[in-house]
């Protein structure tokens, strides 16, 4: 019994039927997996007269078609599962998109503007004698407007300003650059003999950091590519601090100006502890949210015991604790 199918010429009915139900595909798959012999054995045990697939009982064809359908469904399910696994694997940060067709490397690559920065850092400066000095710095930046609030004891100083450029550029060859230029100022009142005054300090910063970027590996509890590793190779900082002092003493106004310009240039190698990590909370095509750990010298202490039993402790090192969260947009 033959059918004529334009694309395939004359083929047997069973062959066309098998093709229609996908049996060939199943058989090829069975054979590929090494089940062909088992399949033939099973068929022979069911039908001793069977010695070729062409004489397959119709019942088996139905069974085969069901088998094929099930197998196709299983394969589809397996593919869906694999795809879903890959997508879920892409989700590393708590606010990551559920899936993305772009690799994490592809998503990081590009030019990013820092649209907001928020966080609080507690600093303690230890002195060799006297009580340590502690203060907190609260950073709030959005739409290029900067507000820093310093608090020590009951005193609060607020400085405000603007970023003219605050960006990261990540290149796919593994290099990056970070630029942060801003102007910020603060006023504080002073009392002088016979009068009062105001000190206005305006700071202009230009900052350029270059280096290489990478992801972390997947060792331990953290997921692979959960952190961005930034290794500085160079850093150039220019700070111009203008200090304007205006006083009014006995009705006589006086203004003095002083400018301090500081440039600091450093180059680093891998052995200079110039790597810092940023935890990627969110990484999508258009958004990066990352958290920078500013914890330095969380605790320190020295105890000394001499023959005479004398012991002492000291902590003459500065420490900082806190995190800053940056949001970047392309």
């Amino acid at each position, binding site marked *: 019994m033959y059918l004529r199918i334009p694309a395939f010429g004359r083929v047997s009915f069973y*062959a066309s039927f098998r093709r229609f139900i996908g049996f060939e595909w199943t058989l090829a798959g069975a054979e590929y997996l090494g089940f062909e012999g088992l399949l033939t054995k099973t068929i022979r045990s069911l039908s001793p007269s069977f010695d070729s697939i062409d004489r397959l009982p119709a019942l088996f064809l139905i069974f085969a078609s069901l088998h094929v359908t099930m197998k196709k469904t299983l394969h589809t399910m397996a593919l869906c599962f694999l795809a879903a696994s890959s997508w879920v694997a892409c989700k590393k940060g708590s606010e990551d998109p559920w899936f993305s067709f772009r690799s994490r490397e592809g998503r990081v690559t590009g030019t990013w503007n820092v649209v907001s920065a928020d966080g609080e850092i507690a600093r303690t400066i230890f002195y060799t004698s006297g009580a340590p000095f502690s203060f907190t710095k609260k950073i709030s930046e959005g739409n290029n407007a900067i507000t820093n609030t310093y608090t020590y004891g009951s005193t609060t100083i607020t400085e405000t300003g603007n970023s003219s450029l605050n960006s990261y550029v990540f290149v796919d060859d593994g290099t990056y650059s970070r630029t942060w230029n801003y102007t910020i100022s603060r006023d504080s009142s002073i009392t002088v003999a016979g009068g009062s005054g105001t000190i206005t300090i305006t700071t202009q910063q230009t900052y350029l950091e270059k280096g290489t970027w990478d992801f972390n*590996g997947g060792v331990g509890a953290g997921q692979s590519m959960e952190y961005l590793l930034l290794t500085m190779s160079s850093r150039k900082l220019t700070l111009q601090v203008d200090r304007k002092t205006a006083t009014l003493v006995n009705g006589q106004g006086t203004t003095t100006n002083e400018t301090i310009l500081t440039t600091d240039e450093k180059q680093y190698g891998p052995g200079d502890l110039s790597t810092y990590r940023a935890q990627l909370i969110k990484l999508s095509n258009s958004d990066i949210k990352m958290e920078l*750990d500013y914890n330095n010298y969380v605790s320190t202490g*020295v105890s000394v015991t001499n023959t005479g039993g004398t012991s002492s402790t000291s902590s003459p090192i500065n420490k900082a604790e806190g995190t800053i969260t940056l949001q970047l947009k392309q």
Partner: protein
Amino acid sequence: MLGQAIAKENRGACFGKMYRSKNVDFQGNATAAVKKTILVANPNYPLMKKLFSMLIAVAVLSVTMVSCKKGPDDPSFSFRSRTSRVSGDWAINSFTYDTTTVTTPATGGNTKTERYNYSESGTSAALVYTRIVGGNTTGNTTPITVNSHTYSFDSDGNVTHKVNYTVKDTLNSAPPQAIATTTVDVVETGNWNFTGGVGDPADMEFMNISYTSVTEKYSTATVTTFGGSSQTSTSSSIDTRTYGLNQRVSTFHILRCANDELILEMTVKASRSGSSTTGSATGTTTVNEDSKTSTGNVLIKLKQ
């Protein structure tokens, strides 16, 4: 019809079972019968089939194995993952640290070159310090006895570095003779991880070690000898420090990652220069910092 099937079967044998099976079945011929005929026509068919399977297996295996070789001295292949190869307790086979810092004074004057060269092999180690200023070379060599020196990496990403060494220092050679023996016990703990594969380096070619806790214990016994009698005084100190995650991250190039040998290298390269200019109504003053450049290398060879 059968001839065509045999021809296709033979051709198919070159391209894999799927292709062959599909063609033969498509003809509607009996698979078993065709195979019997093929065996008569081509007795090498089973051999070709096995050979083909082996070739596929070798190709797949070699691709996997080549991808395991990341460092220049890595083994060509390994059946263990890089994480499991790094994980374990390691003893120092050799440890060298060699850095040179050149300081150019901003105010002019002689350039100062300082070199620290530390080499350790087994229990013997020495720190050689050399200082060259204006053509004059000075320095000293401190012999060190290494009592133990180990690294321990686990698959959870924890790392522990322990070193215990003793240094003898002659404080006074003329009577009264005073010799101080200091034993230093250092324990650093933190975490380790590989780097990703962004840019030129291969994925997992480098590793980061970040120490978050360091404890240093110093125990010194000073023996003073005079007129046949001796007196011993002791002192000890413990210095504990904890660090933030970003404070002490070192990047090592894994030159070799084998089951029983791990070779790590770190390049030291740093330079610094700066200036400060103060301007006021009375004039402008510029202060330049000394320019410093450091170069060097750390090479750690570990054995299990």
